[in-house]
């Protein structure tokens, strides 16, 4: 029989406001096995933990139940408390009487009654708990960073700096990501390339960092400390080790009409290309969709001009398998499609552009060499209208756009408006906004400067319709402060398109078994306290894949993710989860049902000798579980017809005891 202590937490008034904590402690005193029961204002506080520790010693407790907040909050805390008092941490059960009781109920009597029942269920379970000891597994001291934007680059640099090898996998031919496409950065207006490209070079030259560009992750197996990852290196038809990046091929290629994705299709590139001058690795790539040689076998110009002999038309996709201890997701974002907002005529006029396109138009390396010329006729625009929140903050049921605020648009729009006025004072700039959101260091000052010093017209209201007529864009909008509908003949309209996670994130999340929210942003292990970790052990988050972020935030998170990775890789061994499956060999049929449902391949079989009741010896095939590989989902326990497979910590009899306690 266990000797159980029950500790009921008030959580200030969070629990005590709706649950009579004293009555709960009193009622639970009489439950089987309970030898001690008390309540306290904050069990998780040092004083509260001391009450638990003292009670464990004083009453020689073999198990404890803490009636408190969700185990997701403080299960670890109380396990450590128990351990400090010499009790096996798995002899602790949490009864969730806050999130699942006091916070969702209002009636004190009913709330108390429910809390008592939840407490009884936890006591019933502890009565059947057994001390568990976690197994150990080794750590592969190498990290994988998926995505080579500023988030991925920074994470990789920081991990490499700590002495661990890192691989970056990037789907594009070069690392750099969105930041490489930007012109200047708010609020300091330093040039994006000037601060990014040195980091790209550092990553390219580091002996700890390997860059798999033009590659993607195709399979992930294993678990924290021991991931087995397959990387698909797409055929770029250029031998990376031979190409010097001289660029001659990209000048001689006769296929000139390929939309240049780096400039968002606003100009053309060749079929063989290097995305931009500072690309890392600076290696050419052949676009198989456009290359005449690859399509029809006729051409071969690039091969002829390449003095390094780097062109290889026969190259195939290559699959690389590598082991990693930690994986960082840094898949970034994209602006959403403007198709569902064509009242703004994005698909009807070339002079309606997105903000990212505007970045390229003002970038010295862009299609207009940094001169602000509008795409339709290359004329200098004199009236520019910026529209904020296009596709952001849309109600879910509107079935277009995103529900969230995209966060970065207010600031980059202020930047665009300011830079335009700075460089072209003859230009009228209007910004239509719903709210201007500038919470960040020096952000509001920046926005105010745009208004006060640069004379940008900020108008509270929204644009309702944009109609191209002749060579102007007729902008019809509301001015809510003056309660007017206003009409502007604009030369250029810039839409601050909402941003969304990259499309590759969803399948990647499935591979990683990492969870996502409804918007396809990766969920963090804890929204406040573990913001750079995914709930899946060993998978970390960096940058906008977790939520909209600007560059400073991204870099901060990238560094934080790196430090988490370093902390993990610094360990030689990892303690596993002891709540794993185990098979009772005497009952096992060896039928393989459990093996077939195990997602981790943790179950193996062997033939064993058994003494039969008639004293003969029979050889039977029986299952055994690799505890380092098992993650404890329990799929096998239900697949097993004989009930030989059970799960430690969530055993059949424990769950049934909870059911019984609840239904009693």
């Amino acid at each position, binding site marked *: 029989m266990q000797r159980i202590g029950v500790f009921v937490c008030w959580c200030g008034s969070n629990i005590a406001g709706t649950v009579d904590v004293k009555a709960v402690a009193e009622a639970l005193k009489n439950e089987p096995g309970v030898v001690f029961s008390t309540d306290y204002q904050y069990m998780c506080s040092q004083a509260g933990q001391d009450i638990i520790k003292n009670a464990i010693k004083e009453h020689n407790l073999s198990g404890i139940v803490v009636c408190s907040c969700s185990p997701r909050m403080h299960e670890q805390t109380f396990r450590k408390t128990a351990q400090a008092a010499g009790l096996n941490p798995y002899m602790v059960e949490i009864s969730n009487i806050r*999130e699942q009781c006091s916070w969702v109920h209002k009636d004190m009597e009913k709330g108390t009654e429910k809390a008592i029942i939840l407490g009884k269920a936890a006591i019933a379970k502890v009565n059947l708990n057994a001390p568990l000891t976690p197994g150990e597994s080794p750590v592969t001291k190498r990290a994988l960073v998926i995505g080579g934007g500023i988030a991925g680059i920074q994470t990789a640099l920081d991990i490499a700096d700590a002495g661990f090898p890192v691989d970056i996998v990037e789907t594009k031919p070069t690392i750099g990501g969105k930041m490489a496409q930007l012109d200047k950065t708010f609020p300091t207006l330093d040039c994006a390339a000037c601060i990014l490209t040195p980091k790209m070079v550092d990553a390219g030259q580091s002996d700890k960092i390997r860059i798999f560009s033009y590659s993607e992750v195709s399979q992930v197996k294993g678990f924290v400390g021991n991931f087995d990852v397959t990387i698909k290196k797409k055929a770029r038809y250029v031998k990376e080790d031979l190409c010097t990046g001289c660029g001659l091929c990209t000048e001689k290629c006769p296929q000139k009409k390929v939309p240049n994705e780096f400039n968002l299709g606003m100009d053309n590139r060749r079929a063989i290309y290097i995305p931009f001058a500072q690309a890392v690795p600076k290696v050419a790539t052949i676009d198989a969709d456009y290359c005449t040689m690859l399509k029809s076998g006729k051409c071969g110009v690039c091969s002829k001009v390449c003095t390094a002999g780097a062109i290889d038309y026969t190259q195939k996709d290559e699959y690389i398998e590598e082991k990693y201890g930690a994986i960082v997701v840094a898949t970034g974002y994209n602006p959403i499609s403007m198709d569902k907002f064509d009242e703004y005529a994005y698909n009807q006029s070339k002079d309606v552009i997105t903000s990212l396109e505007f970045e390229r138009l003002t970038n010295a390396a862009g299609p207009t060499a940094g001169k602000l010329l509008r795409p339709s006729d290359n004329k200098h625009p004199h009236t520019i209208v910026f529209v904020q929140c296009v596709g952001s903050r849309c109600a879910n049921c509107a079935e277009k756009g995103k529900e969230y605020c995209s966060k970065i648009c207010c600031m980059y729009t202020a930047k665009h408006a300011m830079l335009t006025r700075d460089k072209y004072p003859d230009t009228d700039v209007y910004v239509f906004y719903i709210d201007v959101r500038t919470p960040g260091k020096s952000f509001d000052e920046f926005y105010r400067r745009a208004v006060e010093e640069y004379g940008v017209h900020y108008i509270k209201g929204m644009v309702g319709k944009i109609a191209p007529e002749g060579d102007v864009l007729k902008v019809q909008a509301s001015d809510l402060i003056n309660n007017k509908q206003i009409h502007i003949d604009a030369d250029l309209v810039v839409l601050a398109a909402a941003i969304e996670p990259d499309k590759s994130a969803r399948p990647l999340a499935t591979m990683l078994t990492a969870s996502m929210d409804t918007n396809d942003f990766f969920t963090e292990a804890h929204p406040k306290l573990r913001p750079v970790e995914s709930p899946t052990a060993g998978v970390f988050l960096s940058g906008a894949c977790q939520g909209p972020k600007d560059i400073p935030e991204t870099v901060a998170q990238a560094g934080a993710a790196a430090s988490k990775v370093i902390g993990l890789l610094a360990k030689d061994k990892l303690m596993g989860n002891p*709540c794993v499956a185990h098979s009772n060999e005497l009952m096992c049929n060896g039928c393989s049902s459990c093996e077939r449902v195990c997602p981790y391949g943790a179950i193996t079989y062997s033939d064993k000798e058994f003494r039969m009741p008639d004293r003969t010896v029979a050889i039977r095939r029986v299952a055994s579980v690799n505890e380092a590989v098992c993650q404890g989902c329990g799929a096998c326990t239900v697949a097993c017809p004989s009930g030989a497979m059970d799960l430690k910590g969530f055993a059949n009899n424990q769950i049934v005891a909870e059911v019984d306690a609840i239904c009693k």
Partner: protein
Amino acid sequence: MQINGEFKPLIVAFCCNWCSYAGADLAGNNRLAYPENVKIIKVPCSCRVNPMFILRAFQRGADGVIICGCHPGDCHYTSGNYYTRRRMSLLFSMLNFLGIEKERTRVEWVSAAEGAKFAATMNEFTEAVAALGENKRLEDLRCKR
């Protein structure tokens, strides 16, 4: 369960640790109310739920049993909820075949972000079970209070 002459169905909710239990916590964080008679049992994954647990709950007096897990495709263990889906499809169809009211059993996918869905589901399910009255078709009279 009768409280002051009013029938309050006892609902046992099996919630997976990663999504639905967290969803229930989020309902708590947002103070989204649902009936007190919903009692949650945490399991690591919805695929841990053995049909025997469900029958046991009914035996002991539960009026409805709901299993909540991550959305298909989002299982923390990759595939657990896919097995849950098959198992419960067959089990619940069988219970219905035996004449057990189909409204007493349910599977709902609730993510960690869907606190509102969790509360709404519990309210809705409780209401549906309440409309049926007490579980009499799968009860064990010896276990009656």
